[in-house]
């Protein structure tokens, strides 16, 4: 099925819901895996917004979404690498232990 004239409000609502949920997850979880997944949810929310705007303003939004997907995939690759290394060193819920920059 194809949307043709539905209000933008819907899609923006989807986008912002995803961003808010992702942010909540990012801020409230202890394991790095959940944090990476939250980040991905945020990026996806932004991509939905970009695609929605592309229907109104032209093709640039879609292209930026392409780039965002590509970069996000790379980011996941690095993030998971770090995850594996750090988990071996500190255990699964390590962000709390990474606090040697405190006073």
């Amino acid at each position, binding site marked *: 099925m194809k949307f*043709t004239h539905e209000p933008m409000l819907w899609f923006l609502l989807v986008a912002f819901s995803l961003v808010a949920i992702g942010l909540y997850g990012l801020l*409230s979880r202890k394991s790095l895996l959940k944090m990476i997944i939250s980040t991905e*949810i945020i990026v996806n929310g932004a991509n939905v917004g970009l695609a929605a705007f592309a*229907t*109104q303003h*032209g*093709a640039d939004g879609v292209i930026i979404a*392409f780039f965002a997907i590509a970069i996000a995939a790379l980011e996941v690759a*690095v993030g998971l690498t770090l995850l*594996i290394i750090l988990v071996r060193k500190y255990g699964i819920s390590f962000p709390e232990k990474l606090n040697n920059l405190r006073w």
Partner: protein
Amino acid sequence: MLLYFTILFLVVIATAIAAIELTNFIWVLVAFATLLTEIALFYFSLGFPLLGAFQLAIYAGGVAILVLFAILTIGEREEEQRESKLAAGVALATFVTGVIASIWIGIQTKPYLEISLKEIAQVFMDKYALLVIPLSFTAVGIIYGAYYLLTKKLQKEE
């Protein structure tokens, strides 16, 4: 149409919350993969089949599998949760702000543009082609960095 959107919307929200809230990483991954697929459906419905295909291939395919391997490496369960009212408040504020902003921006809607694949390719070649070069270097650097970290770090530990 509204019904279709509502179903999609509810599924997206539900899977997102599930991906955050579940404690078993396998189920988290399942919820996350569902979420990514649903978002691909959004792209198809908005008239961007290529973007949807990308989403499916890279996210629902590559990223999900990567996460699966990571889970297999580190173990299945999360140990504990963090209680954070501040995080909930910030997220809620973001959501409220988003709703306000989307009402502000999205109240007026023109009929959707028909953006063909050819047009996207045209704009890409005109504006963004050169961006691919630094992007590809960055990608190479990131991939090599990840590889280096994994191999050297693991070797050192052994």
